[in-house]
């Protein structure tokens, strides 16, 4: 899995490419920890190049969301592919998080 970070105003965007599963989720969680240590509060996960997510990936995303909320921050999502959206729906994540179709929408306050 590849992770590319960029800044859009107050929002830090992490673009995840590839598969987020039990093997790759530690790398994502490590990037998330670095982000929190750097003081980021508003984070967008760009999943437009993410082809697969398992419960291990969801666990890392929820952990990040909880930590951001603890510092009055927020986690948003953009560009979910059909099968990733299905997993979000089955896990009830579609009710927890705002999802957007493009970066401009996700990074508008």
């Amino acid at each position: 899995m590849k992770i590319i970070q960029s800044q859009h105003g107050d929002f830090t965007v992490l673009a995840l490419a590839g598969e987020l599963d039990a093997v790759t989720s530690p790398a994502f969680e490590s990037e998330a920890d670095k982000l929190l240590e750097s003081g980021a509060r508003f984070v967008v996960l760009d999943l437009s190049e993410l082809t697969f997510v398992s419960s291990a990936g969801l666990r890392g995303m929820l952990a990040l969301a909880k930590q951001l909320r603890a510092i009055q921050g927020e986690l948003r999502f953009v560009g979910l592919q059909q099968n990733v959206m299905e997993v979000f729906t089955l896990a009830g994540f579609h009710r927890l998080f705002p999802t957007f179709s493009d970066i401009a929408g996700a990074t508008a306050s």
Partner: protein
Amino acid sequence: MARFQCMAAADDIRRMEKEILSHAADHGANDIALSHIRLALEELLTNIRLYAYREGPGRIVVNTGINSLREGVSPESGRAVSDNTDKCFLHLEIIDWGPAFNPLEDSAMPDLESGIDERPVGGLGVHLVRQVAASVTYARINRPPPLKGNNRLYVSIALSR
């Protein structure tokens, strides 16, 4: 029936998953079915790697079968109510030789309604498998020593919807 096997190490599991997905695609699995099969394999094989074989990699065997289950069968005549209700399923029998471990036990339906602060982190793997599979069951097969008993998971997933 086809038989696949791997060691419970991440790379070898991934290789076997690809082989099973290719096999399912050859038998008509559409993209949605393939993503369901991938998800079920990922969740269940990761459980085996992390729990059944926590003290070191062991062998995993997956037997697969594909058949057409006739839905709406009349109990009186044994005949299908409608020929249009046929569905094709991939049946997986996943075997490991670790200590007895039933991942379906104590896997209550997670609370999907609560907010971010209230939602526990984790506990979604078996829930996801139950959602994408038509059925999932567990059996422990005990053997007299020196033979090793084994855990068997039986999973059926529709190949198309």
